[in-house]
């Protein structure tokens, strides 16, 4: 499945758990340009439906994780988490088993990485020449 397939996909509306709302829409943020109202911004605007459709209510939660000026609306951690939620919700049911397999592989990979990175065996020895030993210098008391 290509990423482009996912872009046009509107979410698994048939799946609606008690705690996770499906993504209702996913589109480009509007650009913050006064001279061109139709321009598209850099970020994605994600809309979550907050209530089940059968309730007859229209409550949505919209979030646009793009930067405006120097202000970042979400932390990197929250943005990443949100992206994972978005991608999962956008994924058709037939892709879920593949996603689960990938997640297990990632967990295994990152679970092993720290010990490998901190191992002193990773450092390559370098050649060096030893100079003649010197007595440690003495620094007499000075007025400050």
């Amino acid at each position, binding site marked *: 499945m290509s990423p482009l397939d996912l872009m046009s996909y509107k979410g698994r509306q048939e799946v609606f758990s008690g705690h996770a709302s499906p993504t209702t829409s996913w589109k480009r943020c509007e650009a913050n340009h006064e001279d061109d109202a139709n321009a598209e911004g850099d970020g994605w605007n994600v809309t979550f439906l907050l209530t089940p459709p059968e309730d007859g209510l229209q409550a949505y939660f919209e979030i646009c994780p793009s930067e405006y000026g120097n202000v970042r609306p979400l932390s990197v951690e929250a943005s990443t988490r949100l992206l994972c939620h978005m991608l999962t919700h956008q994924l058709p049911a037939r892709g879920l088993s593949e996603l689960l397999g990938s997640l297990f592989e990632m967990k295994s990979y990152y679970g092993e990485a720290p010990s490998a990175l901190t191992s002193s065996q990773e450092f390559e020895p370098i050649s060096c020449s030893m100079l003649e030993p010197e*007595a*440690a210098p003495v*620094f007499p008391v000075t007025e400050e």
Partner: protein
Amino acid sequence: MDSQIYTHSPNFNECLRQAEIVSGIIQLMVAESSLASAIDFRRPIAVLPVVHEFAIVMTQGCDLVQDFNARAKNEEQVPNVLFCPLPRAEALKRPRNGSEIPSRDWKRIQQNDDKRYHFFEAAPQDADAANEGLPELTADFKRYFTMQTAFVYRQLKDGTAKRRCELKSPYLEHFSFRFAFFLGRIGLPEPHQSEPA
């Protein structure tokens, strides 16, 4: 006569002690000319062995014990030992440019009233594990260094460095506290001012 201040160090194969004085410890430093090469791992570097006639262990005693026990199981808890070099007091007193240090200034140092320095009286022969006795020494709290713990034990085992003596309580705590106080001092933009009388 037993020294009130010092007791001789244990054997080379026992745990290092806080405020233990060792002699002849060799610190390996990257030579000044090789500093640029030291961060480019493809080029060889020159290493300068610096011999400290005397140095005192500043690392906490309990940390040293835990690390020593861990090493028996091929583990380590204190990768580096903190030392303060201990030059001879007479060398520290020696003027650099011919001008004498005022005797009242030296008296402040010798009485441990100068926060930067710590003076150690001479250690008698029977308090020295090498049975030689130690001269008067002085620590300058602005100067300290660390060494790989395994390398320190290696030098003690090989006899390159020698364990000499350690400070007894409360001289150990007095020394340790003064060092901690010096490191913890707070620089103020301006001192408090007093109105003229």
